[in-house]
């Protein structure tokens, strides 16, 4: 039972300090700065129609994005771990590139590929589909990289045993593979959702930033900061943050519930 008691006081203290320096203190400073107007201003800021539209768009699009990620991320992870084909290692190494590429480059390239004059005949630039596309690009690694390590550790003999006992591939998938992968998929989905809600750089070029149409929450927040309107920026950030945390909490609960009830 390594760490059953949660480790030494020293170790915990250092984790705490690290977390405070990186997260607690800056977020507290931000909230303090923005809370000067009181709750009435907070409500006014977040009921601004442009803000409401941006928040709504962000949450809906993020939900679509994580759904696609959950499906394709799991498939890709499965292929990368269980399948063998020439060039697999190269494909595996490419998965993380969306993180490392500066978002401005991602924006320019996506615009060139999936905008007017697209070489593959897909023109989604300046539509909401473009937001989905850009977010799928920047969140691609999450589910893949969460599921991959669990698949590595998963014992194939369980599946083989089930199959030899006459279980169909769907049954094996549903009864054996997915329950084991569920926490990892959920973990990846949670991270994708959070990142999708906060993403900014890759979106600014391909969406056109039209208020009420393609302006997402993070772009709205950016505009409010540029405008010295910190309370509005913080208020909308807080709403997005709370929404993301609620989703994260719900997913964590779901993951626990699953591991208790299925395994």
């Amino acid at each position, binding site marked *: 039972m*390594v*760490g059953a008691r*949660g*480790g030494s006081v020293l*170790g915990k203290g250092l984790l705490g300090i690290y977390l405070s*320096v*990186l*997260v607690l*203190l*800056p*977020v507290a400073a*931000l909230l303090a700065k923005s809370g000067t107007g009181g709750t009435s201003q907070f409500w006014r800021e977040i009921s601004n129609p442009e803000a409401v539209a941006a928040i709504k768009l962000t949450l809906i699009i993020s939900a679509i994005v994580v759904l696609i990620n*959950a*499906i*394709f991320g*799991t*498939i*890709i992870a*499965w*292929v990368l771990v269980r399948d063998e084909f020439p060039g697999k290692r190269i494909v595996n190494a*490419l998965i*993380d590139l*969306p*993180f*490392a*590429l*500066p*978002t*401005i*480059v991602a924006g320019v*390239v996506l615009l060139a590929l999936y905008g007017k004059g697209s070489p593959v005949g897909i023109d989604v630039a300046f539509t909401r589909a473009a937001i989905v596309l850009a977010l799928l*690009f920047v969140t691609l690694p999450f589910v893949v*990289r*969460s599921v991959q*390590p*669990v698949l*590595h*550790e*998963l014992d194939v003999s369980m599946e083989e045993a089930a199959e030899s006992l006459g279980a169909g*591939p*769907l049954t094996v998938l549903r009864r054996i593979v997915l329950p084991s992968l*569920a*926490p*990892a*998929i959920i973990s990846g989905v949670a991270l994708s959702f959070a*990142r999708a809600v906060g*993403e*900014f*750089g890759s979106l600014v070029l391909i969406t056109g930033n039209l208020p009420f149409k393609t302006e997402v*929450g993070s772009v709205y927040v*950016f505009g409010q900061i540029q405008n010295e309107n910190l309370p509005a*920026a913080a208020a909308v950030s807080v709403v*997005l*943050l709370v*929404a*993301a*945390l609620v989703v*994260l*909490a719900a997913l964590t609960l779901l993951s626990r519930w699953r*591991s208790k009830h299925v395994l």
Partner: protein
Amino acid sequence: MSSSASGSIALSSGSTGRAAPRGAPSADGAARARKLGVRTIALGYLALLLLAPVAMIFYRTFEHGLTPVWNAVSEPNAQHAFWLSLEIVAIAVPLNTVFGIGMALLLERGRFKGKALLGLLIDLPFAISPVVIGLALVLAYGKTGWLGDWLAENGIQVIFSVPGMVIATAIVSLPFVARETIPVLRELGTDAEQAASTLGASGWQTFWRITLPGIRWGVVYGVVLTTARALGEFGAVSIVSGRIEGETQTLPLYVQARFENFDITGAYTAAVVLALLAFATLVAMNLLTRRTRAETIA
């Protein structure tokens, strides 16, 4: 759920896939066809979403030959940005790795009140737009920020210098290692650890011999993701860096500056360098894991 839908998609496309076996399909053949179908879906998705953009970046970089690329790489500001990016990654990634493993053990194996809350806390920076993270750091550590006076008295400059950039980078890549490791820890269970303890292994031995090899893939992907994200971060770092060329300009900031300046080749070249760095991280981590595994078995 969504994932079972993926299974059925895989099935149907497998049976109509180009490599569907002829004649009476044996169980083996059906499995192969399924595999091919799933592979086709995965690679097709990746081709559209990932391979095409990456290929285009490489094409655009080298379309005018090697001379402009060489000129871009030998630019002093580009080289400084390269080393600065490496420096920041070299500090932020080990910190986040140790933090992440510790946090994962705490969250998965510890029992204490507020655990769920703590779990959410490490994901928190993720849902905040990087621009807002930069702003929050300025409000906390800047000249007029909460700790501004104290830091100034002690001669420490955080904002607009490397420490602030390291902090910003660490924040945006904070949850990866913990989030990658937790599911593996859960899947791993505690049986082996308990057995080792019973046989008299010390905590350190148990961790090093049992737990770490067990979670190594989680840690590997966590580190790879952390490094990639740390290399590519622009928004938060751009606000706390001051963007001084040859001093506080990282590679992504350099890319932005080149783009603003209509030097497209310079921007793409630096982007390719970033991609290669991420690539190298993965290869290095793979080699490292392979060696640890060999040692553990031996």
